[in-house]
C-alpha cells in the first residue's frame, strides 16, 4: 500500500501526461508520441489505484478478468471499425463513459465508506452534491449519445423529432433535477437519487431527438464535452486529481469543437440545441422546381479532358464521397494527374463529414498525404488561380448563395470559393439540394459542368479516360 500523498502525486503525473497527449495533436508528427503519453498516463492511474488499496483479495481476480474482457472488446472494435463509421463509434464510446460515471456515482452513494465520503444515509453534503451532478451529467451523456448513435447509424431517422412545448418540458425537467438534488441533500433518500438519474436519462433523450442529421457534428462535440464534465463531477466526489484534470480537459475540448462546428455552419449554439433544422425539405423541393434553369451536363470523357489540360486542380470532397467509398478511386485519379505534372490540392470545409476532422481521416486512410490537404481559410484564395475544381460529394459548403443572399438559411456560412475557378466539375447524383435544403446556384453557372453519377463510378470512369 502506498501513502495517499504519493498516490495523489502519481494521479497528478497522469493528469499531466494527458495534457501532453492532447498537446501532441498539434501536428501529425508529434501525435503518435502524444498518444503514448496518454496510454502511460492511464497505466499509471490504474496501477496506482491498485497499489493504494491495501488488502487485495480474491475480488482482484474478478477486476483483472473484467478489465481484460472490456479491453479485448475495445481492441476488437478499434481494429474492425471502418473509418466512415468513426462518428458512430465516438458517440457509442461517449455513452459508455456516461454510463460508467453513473455507475461509479451509484457505487459511491451505496457504499460511501470506501470512498471516505461519510456513511450511508449520512454522506457529506459536498460529496452528495458532487456525485449527484456527476451522475446526472453522466446519465444525460449516456442516453443522449445512444440517440446520437442510433441517428448516425441510420437505425433512427435523422429527421428532427419535435413536439409542442418540447423546450418547456426540457426546462422543467432541468429545474426538477436541481430541486430534487436540493431535497436529496436534506433527506439523503435513495429514492430521490434514483429519480435524479431517471430524469437525467430522459433529458438526454429529449435533448437530442429534435436535432437533425446535419447538426450531428455539433451534437457529437457537445456530448464529448458532457462526458468530460461528468468525469470531472465524479473526480470531485472521489477527490481524484487525475479525474478532475481530465474532466476539465475533455470538457473544454468538446466545448471548443462544438464552437468551431457551429461557426463553420454559421449557426448559433442555441439554435442547434433547440433543434428542428433540416426539417422543412418539402419547401426546398418547391424552390428547385420553381425555376428550372439549364445546366451543362458532362461525362467522364469531358472531365478527363478538362483535368488533363489543367495545370492545377483543387479537389473538394464531401461526405457523399465517403458514403460512395470513392476515396480510393479518387486517389488513383489524382496519381494519374500528378504524373502529368498537374498540381493537386484538397480543400476541406470544417463540416465536410459527420464529425470534426472526419474528412481528413478518410483522406488519410486513402493514403492522401496530409500536406496536400488544406483547411478552408488556407486554400480559399487559391481557387481564383486554379484551373479546375473537382467537387465530389460536397454541396452546401460550395454554395455561393451563402455570400450573396441574406434570406438564405445558410447565409453567412463560410463557403469554399469554388465558383472562382476557371471550370468546376460537380459530381452528384441529381440536382437535389443538400442537407440545408437550399438549391445550389453553382449548378447553373456557365463554368460548371455537372457529372451526374455515383461518385465512385464516375471517378473510376474518369480514371479510365485519363489513360
Amino acid at each position: 500500500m502506498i501513502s495517499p500523498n504519493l498516490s495523489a502525486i502519481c494521479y497528478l503525473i497522469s493528469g499531466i501526461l494527458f495534457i501532453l497527449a492532447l498537446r501532441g495533436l498539434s501536428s501529425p508528427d508529434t501525435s503518435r508520441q502524444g498518444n503514448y503519453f496518454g496510454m502511460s498516463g492511464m497505466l499509471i492511474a490504474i496501477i496506482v489505484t491498485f497499489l493504494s488499496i491495501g488488502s487485495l483479495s480474491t475480488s482482484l481476480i474478478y477486476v483483472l478478468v473484467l478489465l481484460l474482457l472490456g479491453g479485448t472488446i475495445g481492441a476488437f472494435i478499434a481494429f474492425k471499425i471502418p473509418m466512415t463509421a468513426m462518428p458512430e463509434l465516438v458517440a457509442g464510446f461517449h455513452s459508455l463513459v456516461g454510463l460508467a460515471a453513473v455507475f461509479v456515482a451509484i457505487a459511491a452513494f451505496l457504499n460511501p465508506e470506501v470512498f471516505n465520503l461519510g456513511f450511508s444515509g449520512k454522506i457529506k453534503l459536498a460529496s452528495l452534491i458532487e456525485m449527484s451532478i456527476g451522475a446526472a451529467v453522466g446519465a444525460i451523456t449516456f442516453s443522449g449519445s445512444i440517440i446520437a448513435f442510433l441517428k448516425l447509424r441510420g437505425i433512427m431517422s435523422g429527421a428532427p423529432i419535435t413536439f409542442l412545448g418540447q423546450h418547456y418540458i426540457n426546462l422543467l425537467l432541468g429545474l426538477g433535477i436541481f430541486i430534487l438534488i436540493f431535497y436529496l441533500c436534506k433527506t439523503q433518500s435513495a429514492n430521490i437519487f434514483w429519480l435524479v438519474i431517471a430524469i437525467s436519462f430522459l433529458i438526454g433523450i429529449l435533448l437530442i431527438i429534435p436535432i437533425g442529421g446535419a447538426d450531428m457534428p455539433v451534437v457529437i462535440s457537445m456530448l464529448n464535452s458532457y462526458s468530460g464534465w461528468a468525469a470531472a463531477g465524479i473526480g470531485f466526489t472521489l477527490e481524484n486529481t487525475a479525474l478532475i484534470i481530465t474532466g476539465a480537459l475533455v470538457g473544454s475540448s468538446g466545448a471548443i469543437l462544438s464552437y468551431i462546428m457551429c461557426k463553420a455552419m454559421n449557426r448559433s449554439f442555441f439554435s442547434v440545441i433547440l433543434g428542428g433544422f433540416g426539417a422543412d425539405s418539402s419547401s426546398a423541393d418547391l424552390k428547385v422546381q420553381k425555376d428550372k434553369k439549364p445546366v451543362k451536363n458532362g461525362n467522364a470523357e469531358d472531365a478527363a479532358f478538362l483535368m488533363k489540360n489543367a495545370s492545377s486542380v483543387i479537389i473538394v470532397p464531401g461526405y457523399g464521397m465517403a458514403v460512395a467509398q470513392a476515396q480510393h478511386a479518387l486517389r488513383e485519379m489524382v496519381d494519374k494527374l500528378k504524373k502529368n505534372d498537374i498540381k493537386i490540392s484538397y480543400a476541406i470545409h470544417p463540416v465536410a463529414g459527420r464529425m470534426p476532422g472526419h474528412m481528413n481521416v478518410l483522406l488519410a486512410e486513402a493514403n492522401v498525404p496530409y500536406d496536400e490537404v488544406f483547411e478552408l481559410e488556407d486554400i480559399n484564395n487559391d481557387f481564383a488561380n486554379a484551373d479546375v475544381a473537382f467537387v465530389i460529394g460536397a454541396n452546401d459548403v460550395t454554395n455561393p448563395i451563402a455570400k450573396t443572399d441574406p434570406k438564405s438559411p445558410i447565409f453567412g456560412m463560410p463557403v469554399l470559393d469554388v465558383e472562382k475557378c476557371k471550370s468546376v466539375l460537380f459530381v452528384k447524383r441529381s440536382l437535389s439540394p443538400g442537407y440545408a435544403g437550399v438549391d445550389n446556384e453553382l449548378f447553373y453557372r456557365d463554368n460548371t459542368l455537372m457529372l451526374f453519377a455515383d461518385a465512385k463510378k464516375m471517378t473510376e470512369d474518369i480514371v479510365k479516360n485519363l489513360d
Partner: protein
Amino acid sequence: MEIDPFIFRLSIFILSIFVGYYVVWSVTPSLHTPLMSVTNAISSVIIVGAIIAALAGSSKEIFSSSSIFGYIAIVLAAVNIFGGFLVTQRMLQMYKKKKDKQK
C-alpha cells in the same frame, strides 16, 4: 481558518479548463477526429473510481450491491480505454507526409 481542500480541487479544475482551452486551440483541425477519440479514451480514467468500488467488497463480501456497479463500470471503461487509444493509434498511423509515400 483553514482552507477547505475543496477549494484546492476547484483551483486545479479551473486551471485545467484554461490549460485545456489553450491546448485544444493549438490542435490542428485535421486531427480533430483523433482528438475526440483520445479525449474519449482519457476520460475513461473514471475507471479508478470503478476499481475502488469493485475492490471495496473484499472486506465484507465480494459481490455487494455497490461492488457490482463497480464491476460493470470497469468493463465499460475498459472498452473505452482500449478502444479509444487503439482506434486513435490506428488513425494516426494513416497520416503520412508526401515524402514518406515515395519510399
